[in-house]
């Protein structure tokens, strides 16, 4: 099967606190890094797509990158924003609107949990006033029910967070770079039981960008293209157990992540069993566990054994979140989806240095999930 879109360059900033830089400036830095990686100039880019939640309008970055007059589309879909940027840029190349496109995501959040206006998310003000508009609550409630239904124990949560910190210690641009033991994670302060502080990502700052090119154009840019075999974005169907839901039907529906993953795998003609390395939305440790099964990379309930056996470690059968994921890099909402693509691209090129997955991985997978029930998944290959 041929593929029409290649990733020919990736770039990112460090992730964490950037007290001296505006979020928009981080996006500019990531864009420049991606262009340098591709060996291209900003003037080569015919179309850009970008987004952030708290750091401004992506297209305002043209004043720093260059006023070339290109089309620049701003996107925002919560934590799935990077996936939406990738989806849009890819579709524009496939449509023939551009041969070279840039997708950029960046953000810079205040300290602490997100403060969201309920009305921006289709909810009454009462929902926030009464203390329900808090994303960590959702993740804690989702994993508690999941553990109950599928026999996962709290040890798995600590194993995920410990792995994230270990992988983060191998990632120079990560925020949390100190490897933590299972005990370190378990003994950190309880945030929303069963989830402790070190099981959560923290809203932070950072940016990531990727340069995409058509098949023909990619051949002239790089000898190491990474093919974007598919990318699919979906919103929630009725019955999905999704963040910020004042009520849920008793009969469960298909989870949004599952919808997006199925579409991405079907479009790619590649199955979950073919994936060699994956980046999965790990807003907290439980999310990585749930999402692994929701995207189809394992069976529900199989995760604890996989974690205990180290199968999702960098040297394991199915490495997950090799750069430490959101838990180690933090969650600049606009940036995380493209950070995932950045990491998969490095892994498939063999450029991931001390955290390189052994055995020349061929197929990679990315997954984001965000409020109020949106997910995007991508399949990439060498």
């Amino acid at each position, binding site marked *: 099967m041929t593929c029409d879109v290649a990733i020919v360059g990736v770039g990112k900033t460090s992730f964490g606190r950037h007290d001296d830089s505006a979020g928009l400036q981080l996006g500019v830095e990531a864009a420049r890094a991606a262009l340098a990686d591709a060996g291209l100039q900003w003037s080569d880019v015919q179309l850009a797509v970008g987004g952030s939640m708290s750091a401004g309008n992506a297209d305002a970055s043209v004043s720093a990158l260059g006023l070339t007059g290109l089309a620049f589309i701003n996107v925002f879909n919560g934590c799935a924003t990077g996936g939406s940027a990738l989806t849009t840029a890819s579709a524009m190349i496939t449509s023939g609107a551009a041969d070279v496109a840039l997708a950029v995501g960046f953000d810079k959040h205040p300290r*602490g*949990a*997100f*403060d969201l*206006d*309920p009305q921006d998310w289709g909810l*009454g*003000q*009462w929902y*926030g*006033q*009464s*203390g*329900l*508009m*808090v994303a*960590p*609550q959702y993740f*804690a*409630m*989702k994993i*508690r*029910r999941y553990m*109950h239904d599928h026999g996962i124990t709290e040890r798995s949560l600590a194993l995920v967070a410990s792995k994230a910190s270990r992988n983060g210690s191998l990632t120079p641009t990560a925020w949390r770079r100190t490897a933590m033991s299972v005990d370190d994670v378990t003994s950190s302060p*309880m*945030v*929303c*039981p*069963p*989830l402790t502080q070190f099981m959560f990502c923290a809203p932070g700052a950072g940016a990531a960008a990727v340069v995409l090119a058509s098949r023909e154009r990619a051949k002239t840019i790089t000898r190491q293209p990474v093919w974007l075999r598919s990318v699919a974005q979906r919103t929630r169907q*009725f019955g999905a157990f999704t963040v910020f*839901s*004042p*009520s*849920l*039907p*008793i009969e469960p529906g298909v989870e949004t992540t599952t919808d997006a993953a199925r579409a991405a795998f079907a479009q790619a003609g590649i199955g979950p069993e073919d994936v060699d390395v994956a980046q999965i939305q790990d807003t907290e440790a439980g999310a990585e566990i749930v999402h692994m099964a929701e995207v189809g990379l394992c069976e529900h309930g199989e995760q604890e054994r996989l974690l205990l056996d180290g199968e999702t470690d960098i040297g394991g059968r199915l490495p997950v979140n090799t750069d430490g994921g959101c838990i180690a890099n933090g969650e600049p909402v606009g940036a995380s989806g493209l950070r995932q693509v950045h990491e998969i691209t490095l892994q498939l090129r063999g450029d991931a240095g001390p955290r390189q997955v052994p055995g020349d991985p061929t197929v990679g997978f990315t997954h984001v999930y965000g409020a109020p029930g949106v997910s995007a998944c991508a399949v990439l290959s060498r």
Partner: protein
Amino acid sequence: MIRTDPPARDTHDATPLASGLFCVLDGEPRLIASRCESCSEITFPEQPSCPRCASQSVARELLGPWGVLWTWTVQTFAPKPPFLAADSFEPFGVGYVELPGQLRVETRLTESDPTRLRIGLPMKLTLIDLPGHPQHTTYAFAPAEGQP
């Protein structure tokens, strides 16, 4: 458009956090939902269209006050605005309570001690004043083990 007969009466003294969220009927608090007149799906809070089948023909329906705890956590830190904070923050429980034959409703819990919360715990609807904001009343569920 929501058909509202029979009309729900609000006889509670304090001000509901939002109108149309709950009412008091025969001295007992009840949550106000909408039932789709096409597919019968129930949604809380009430809304003028059905999220399942998109029908715009819905009728008001009061939810039952009894349920079981389906999942839960504890909010251990003060949320940011628009949360109506008190001078000193006290952790509060949050959960989804399954109302048999109706739906699962997201709710504050009157209990915040993790050792006293478990999936399957019988729960009953009540009304609470938001701490530090006695003029604002909202709904919550309380453990109701051993009650009828």
